[in-house]
């Protein structure tokens, strides 16, 4: 069965609008192609997708070489907010952008929830 891209986009859009402090989300393939996204204006979907893929593969490599085991998530913390990368099954990676005021615990929980939703569509 084909992947329902409309549904993917809807889930992402809903996640971004319904979760406080989340500013954007993108689902991409491990080689950096967009599957679906809801991003702040001015951010290019293709570029964001490629960057997510680079980051994740480098992170995974660090996990292996520096004996940190398999990577659950990659976390970028800046003074203007967070960028969080999480694997979403074999064939996708989720990037979430959140503002600096976001509560991290809450954010992780929300990401976990949306991941479960996305995985159902990707199956």
């Amino acid at each position, binding site marked *: 069965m084909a992947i329902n891209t409309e549904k993917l986009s809807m889930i992402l859009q809903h996640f971004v609008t319904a979760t406080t402090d989340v500013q954007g989300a993108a689902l991409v393939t491990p*080689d*950096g*192609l967009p599957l679906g996204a809801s991003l702040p204006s001015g951010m290019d979907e*293709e*570029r964001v997708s490629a960057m997510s*893929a680079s980051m994740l593969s480098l992170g995974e490599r660090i996990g292996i070489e520096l004996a940190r085991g398999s990577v659950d998530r990659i976390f970028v913390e800046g003074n203007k907010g967070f960028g969080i990368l999480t694997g979403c099954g074999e064939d996708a990676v989720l990037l979430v952008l959140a503002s600096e005021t976001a509560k991290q615990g809450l954010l992780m929980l929300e990401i976990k929830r949306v991941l479960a939703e996305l995985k159902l569509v990707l199956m």
Partner: protein
Amino acid sequence: MEIMRLIVTGTVGAGKSTFIRSVSEIEVVDTDTRATDETALLKQKTTVAFDFGRLQFGPDMALHLYGTPGQSRFDFMWDILICKGHAYILLIAAHRPREFRQARKILNFMKERVQIPMIIGLTHTDCPGAWSEEDVYLSIGYIDKEQRPPMIKVNPTQRESVAEAVITLVQRLMESCAV
């Protein structure tokens, strides 16, 4: 110990990762990921961040080799890598003329950012439909014979061939330092 950073760039499937794997003395740090775009028609895996290899070059010089991804969507990696590089080699698959335009794009991208020594490595020259060196020069915009960078044939799967390319690049780097 002096460290020279050489950047290996070029089109998709030209042999950048193989190039580095052939000469590196350490196990290459790669970021290969299963390809899902048109790259998948060519090969199963593609570099999404960079490849890294190391080569001892004489008693007091080490070469660090960085390979870039080939696709334009990773041009931020081209940027990061080239800005730290001392010299670079542009690999072009001679038998895929449709990608010469991409090679030219990469070349222009690099030229806009840095003026460092470079050479062109022509790969897949033994494949059917391979273009001659002269034709490749012309197709990527080097009309004037005086202004051309050196071009050599490379077989990325052969250590000796890759070593020769690396030596040529280092020589070019040395010449530019001497001036």
